């Protein structure tokens, strides 16, 4: 698989990897059968994503997209973060091999799911 330098760098030293104590929202997406499962944790302050962490079971692209989506979302308002598309994720990585595009979809879905979870918890 031909990955660009940026992807390899993020895969090797991912940002915001790990667990979060008492997250305000959690997004769990993917299916282990397909080889990628992503858990995203967010901490929300003043309607902004104050902190974000991920844990991922998956390939090089899955780990790199997990990392980049946390960087894209961090500091953004929930509305801004929600607008992040999988194309944004792929672009921020400097392009993904076509066969690996589905991994970028997963990252975007995980973020959406975490925000949704936060909102549901809040309205309860």
């Amino acid at each position, binding site marked *: *698989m031909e990955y660009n330098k940026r992807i390899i760098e993020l895969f090797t030293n991912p940002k915001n*990897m790990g667990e979060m104590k008492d997250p305000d929202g959690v997004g769990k997406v993917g*299916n282990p*059968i397909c080889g990628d499962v992503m858990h995203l944790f967010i901490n929300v302050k003043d309607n902004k994503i104050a902190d974000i962490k991920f*844990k*991922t079971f*998956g390939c090089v692209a899955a780990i790199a997209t997990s990392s980049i989506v946390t960087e894209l979302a961090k500091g953004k308002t929930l509305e801004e973060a929600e607008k992040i598309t999988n194309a944004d994720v792929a672009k921020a990585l400097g392009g993904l091999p076509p066969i690996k595009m589905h991994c970028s979809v997963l990252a975007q879905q995980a973020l959406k799911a975490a925000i949704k979870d936060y909102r549901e918890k809040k309205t309860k």
Partner: protein
Amino acid sequence: MKVYMDNSATTQMDKAVLKAMLPYFNKQYGNASSLHQMGREARKALEKARSDIAKTINADPEEIIFTSGGTESDNLALKGVAAANQGKHIITSKIEHPAIMSSCNTLSKQGYKITYLNVDSCGIVDLKQLEKEITKDTILVSIMAANNEMGAIQPIEDISEICKKHEVLFHTDAVQAFTKVPIDVKELNIDLMSISSHKIHGPKGIGALFVKKGTKIKRQMDGGGHEFKLRAGTENVASAVGFAVAANLDPKVKQIKELQEELIKRIEYDIKDIKLNGPRKQRLCNNVNFSFKFIEGEALLMLLDQKGICISTGSACASKSLEPSHVLISMGIDPVTSHGSIRFSLSKFNTRRELDYVVRNLKEVVEKLRRMSPFKGDKDIKIKEKEWEC
């Protein structure tokens, strides 16, 4: 440090092989079919190579057909036998190399019925099923001698016996087994056998099909009358010479087996939540295949690559089709575990020092990926069947 442990993919050419080949590129470069002196020289070298290879499997020289490699040999065996024999049924197994699988696929589109035999959890073909599946219409049974992914050595002696009893031709893909497992084609009563040079420290792009005298087979490459009219094309003399030298090198099976046992032992001692894929006993001397739970093989491969370690993986994420390895799946290994599978394949050039380096780094990168993984135990893995479409 650079450590090459992907010898089932291809091997380093042996120095002796390279040396033997060199004169045939720019000094004795004649066409083996030419009648002049240069041609006769080339012919002599080619026929010596043929007979040197034949000897290693107790075949006669005229039974060795040079091809461009294992893939072509497999194609020629299956398609060639199908075209020359009456009957529309072929039996193979679920763990064959794509060269066999894909040839069967082509034949099935031409109206042949193909039966794919099951394997047990160790990857050994079901002999009872073989007995049951043979019919009057069966022309050929093709079962590999040893598997390239998880190293299971197949009971080809028993398979051949069953084939003889029912008067069905028997082909075996021995690309991985050749030189590592003793094969006497007469004693084992084999009709056709594929071998390849680049898996045994020879050059790439040459292989052979053993075709027992009298076997009905139709050539698949049209052209001149080369290779007993079974494979047209100017003979690849330099490579044939190299192949023959490689086939007669000391295969150092015992030395490789010791390294293999050590590697398996050390990995099992040092790393938990793992599974050895393939059999413990009936195993090719150079194959080590493990699944590391909770992590994915392509990621593992890439981190090892960064340490200079070359291995391969059966993970779906690393394949062009995003399909998990058909071999591991047919052994009943679940897709999640197959995702975390990697294969080390050793050669005589690997050392204990390399092994130490590999185990140390493997432990480190497995831990690194497990820290990233949302899974800590089997109970964390919730498979949602519905989302199978990925």
